[in-house]
């Protein structure tokens, strides 16, 4: 109960002053009822009531004046304004309200940004690994190597590899089963007939063992011939 009393601070002061005790009483009865029904219900009541208080805090902080204004405008405009007019107005109202409360706006924007970023990151992984994996066997074990250059204050993003480094990794890396380097680009085939633009991938022979596939046509080249 002490916890709820503390959480009541989220609610508008006038409401708390007038009805705080009554709200505590009502919450206590809801909680008692939930306890009779089981632990799941208790958690549900807590979560719902907490969310309710949060909504109250936000709506009281930003809703009051806007509600009155909206109600007045609605009376005048409802008959003639179309849906789009009302929507545009509401968007403007929301923008003005946000501009008047920069701290809240900033906090809300940051919270949203973090939440969206976290979701996007998780979704990217889930999308790639679970829902839409690369078309290679055991594709969840494929990784891309990425380098930085701490001396130049570059922490990552250098995904090109010098041949010395490739051979070093191929010979010494113990956490990697195979290493391959590839580089894609274009080239023009000339010499016989009409020149043709080709898509070219330059790769180390180890690419097939890294990807775990064989060429659909022909034979893959081997180290000796590379």
């Amino acid at each position, binding site marked *: 109960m002490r916890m709820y009393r503390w959480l009541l601070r989220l609610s508008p002061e006038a409401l708390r002053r007038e009805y705080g005790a*009554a709200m505590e009483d*009502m919450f206590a009865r809801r909680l008692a009822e939930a306890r009779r029904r089981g632990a799941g219900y208790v958690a549900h009541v807590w979560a719902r009531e907490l969310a309710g208080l949060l909504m109250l805090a936000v709506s009281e902080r930003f809703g009051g004046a806007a509600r009155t204004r909206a109600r007045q405008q609605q*009376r005048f405009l409802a008959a003639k304004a179309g849906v789009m007019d009302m929507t545009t107005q509401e968007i403007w109202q929301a923008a003005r309200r946000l501009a008047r409360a920069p701290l809240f706006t900033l906090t809300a924007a940051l919270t949203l940004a973090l939440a969206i970023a976290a979701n996007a990151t998780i979704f990217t992984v889930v999308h790639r690994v679970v829902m839409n994996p690369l078309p290679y066997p055991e594709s969840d074990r494929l990784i891309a190597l990425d380098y930085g250059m701490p001396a130049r204050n570059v922490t990552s993003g250098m995904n090109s590899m010098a041949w010395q480094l490739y051979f070093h990794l191929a010979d010494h890396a113990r956490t990697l089963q195979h290493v391959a380097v590839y580089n894609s680009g274009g080239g023009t085939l000339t010499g016989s007939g009409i020149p043709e633009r080709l898509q070219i991938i330059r790769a180390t022979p180890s690419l097939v063992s890294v990807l775990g596939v064989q060429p659909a046509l022909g034979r893959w080249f081997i180290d000796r011939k590379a």
Partner: protein
Amino acid sequence: VKEIDPTPALPDLVFHVLLALGHGPSHGYAIGQDVEEQSGGRLDPTTGALYQALRRLTDEGLVVPVDGPGDVDPRRKYFALTRAGRRAAAQEAERLAALVRAARQRKLYPQRA
């Protein structure tokens, strides 16, 4: 063409709260239960939402805090309908009834038995 009634529709929760007080004075927890029951579980206001609605209704003079029976927890607040509250509830009921009549006329709702 019938003149459009300028009184806007009451918010759902507000009408249900007024309805809950139709039997006589009541307190938050009981009002909340009645709202949930009457709306078939569609409305189940949190404590905060219910008291915010009650405060607004009090400010608008539709509801008034009254003394409860002597033997209850002194923290418990009782509320009762004012005359304006009864009128607002009646107006809303009339609005809904008119809609039901219109639905009947258009055969969207069963005729009265």
